[in-house]
């Protein structure tokens, strides 16, 4: 038996300086837990030689809330409330992930209206999430204008959410068996207006930032992750697709209305920061295509097939279901003992937790400034890592 439990302190003992006059001494620098580019509390310990990064040791856990433990005492409807605190930029998709797992486990059939509204809201949120990422990437690299542009346009989608859902960030919209509220009568009109506005805006983003020579220099050929390595490191979402692996659950196992619409999976070829950048830009356009096809074909029907007071009982067993959020595959494992209304165990396969570790493979050999680029291109949301 060779179990050896280590501590962080053991790893952080700096090696002694070499004996030669020219050899340099390696040292450690903490990036975070409070660092502007972490967008949350994530500590990265960098082992440096001069300005060259030798090793990155991620230390997560600063916003660990024990959501999986809390879920063991809550019923399926209450669990939904915790899921939009995971990856708050994919709140609707997280709600849907859990609702879908519960519906599969408890054999609840939904209708076309519910699935269409869920799909529309998810795609709107994907656009909103990628826009935030685009602005923040610009800001991380010193282009503050991008941040202002992205927030200006993101605001329109936030207002749409506020009108329909009543919240701008942590939305409790999708429930097991339906959605919380019906869309407003002018929702379709407003979305069409939004699409009309967004088309040229995304092109403007390209002229503003994508073609910029400084941005190109800082993204191209930096942090190359080939497809095989990305799969081995458990990456999903745009990070994996940028490496040339076309894994998109919306295509592979269509749920909601994704089977009825035409869209392409954006795929990169090389897996550098630029591919991750452009994959997301293309995904915004594809999401707009999906919305365009669905906005006029929302079927009639009730928006919840269950009464608000209906008891949802999950039969005994282990259930696993997954969904494609803006950052990758969110898996939900529900274990029920069949006795209590709350599940025996809930586990979230979080996309950011698995994507984070790519940074340990990508960073060595690059400078500190490139770590900023690499981390920004992975688009991590810290509360989803810690859960």
């Amino acid at each position: 038996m060779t179990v050896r439990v280590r501590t962080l302190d053991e790893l952080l003992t700096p090696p002694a300086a070499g004996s030669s006059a020219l050899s340099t001494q390696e040292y450690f620098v903490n990036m975070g837990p409070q660092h502007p580019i972490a967008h949350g509390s994530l500590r990265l310990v960098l082992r440096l030689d001069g300005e060259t990064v030798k090793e990155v040791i991620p230390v997560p856990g600063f916003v660990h809330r024990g959501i999986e433990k809390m879920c063991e005492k809550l019923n399926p409807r209450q669990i939904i409330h915790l899921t939009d605190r995971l990856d708050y930029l994919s709140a609707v998709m997280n709600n849907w992930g859990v609702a879908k797992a519960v519906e599969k486990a408890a054999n609840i059939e939904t209708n076309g209206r519910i699935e269409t509204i869920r799909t529309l809201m998810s795609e709107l949120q994907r656009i909103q999430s990628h826009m935030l990422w685009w602005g923040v990437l610009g800001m991380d690299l010193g282009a503050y204008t991008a941040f202002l542009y992205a927030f200006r346009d993101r605001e329109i989608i936030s207002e749409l959410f506020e009108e329909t859902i009543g919240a701008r960030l942590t939305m409790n919209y999708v429930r097991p068996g339906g959605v919380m509220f019906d869309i407003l009568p002018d929702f379709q009109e407003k979305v069409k207006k939004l699409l009309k506005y967004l088309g040229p805006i995304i092109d403007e983003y390209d002229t503003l930032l994508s073609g910029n020579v400084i941005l190109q220099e800082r993204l191209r050929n930096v942090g190359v992750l080939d497809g095989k390595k990305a799969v081995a490191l458990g990456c999903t979402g745009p990070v994996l697709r940028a490496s040339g692996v076309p894994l998109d659950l919306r295509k592979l196992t269509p749920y909601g209305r994704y089977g009825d619409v035409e869209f392409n999976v954006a795929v990169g070829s090389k897996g550098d920061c630029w591919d991750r950048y452009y994959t997301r830009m293309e995904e915004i356009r594809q999401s707009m295509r999906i919305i365009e096809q669905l906005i006029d074909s929302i079927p009639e029907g009730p928006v919840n097939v269950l009464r608000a007071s209906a008891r949802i009982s999950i039969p005994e067993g282990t259930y696993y279901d997954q969904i494609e959020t803006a950052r990758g595959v969110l898996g939900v494992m529900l274990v029920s003992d069949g006795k209590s209304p709350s599940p025996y165990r809930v586990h979230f396969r979080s996309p950011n937790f698995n994507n984070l570790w790519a940074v340990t493979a990508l960073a060595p050999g690059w400078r500190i400034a490139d770590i900023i680029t690499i981390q920004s291109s992975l688009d991590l949301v810290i509360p989803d890592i810690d859960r």
Partner: protein
Amino acid sequence: MDAQALLQAITGVNPAAQERPNTNVPAVQVPVAGLHAFLQVLRDDPRFSFDFLLDHTAIDWMADGKFELVYQLFSTLHGHTLMVGVLIEREQPLAPTVSDLWPIAEWQEREVYDLFGIPYDDHPDLRRLFLEDDWTGYPLRKDYQDKNMLQRPQ
């Protein structure tokens, strides 16, 4: 390969594997002895080629005195998934590491170690992940007690 053919092929490879009831995905239950070799076959056999470890976690079956390790496998080649469940003893648990097969397992196993206290044999970097190194107890165990925990009204 559809779910039924997949499960048949797996029982052909490992006769000890049993189909797991009450689930919505193809799932098998295997004994812990020979787990690493079995998972290696699942990864390397071209019929299965499960090259992607989507998820690894554990379940605490306290009443039965067992922990269950759960692996969610996915094949980017065939597009099929498989859930593998393994029961181990709750007293003095020990599990084989699969981080040599799928590098992501290194961190997923660290999470399980941190929250369940299941040590992994030959793990390259077994450390607490979210909690501090001097934390006592393992929070996702069913019998975990903390002086700050509130008792829920029954």
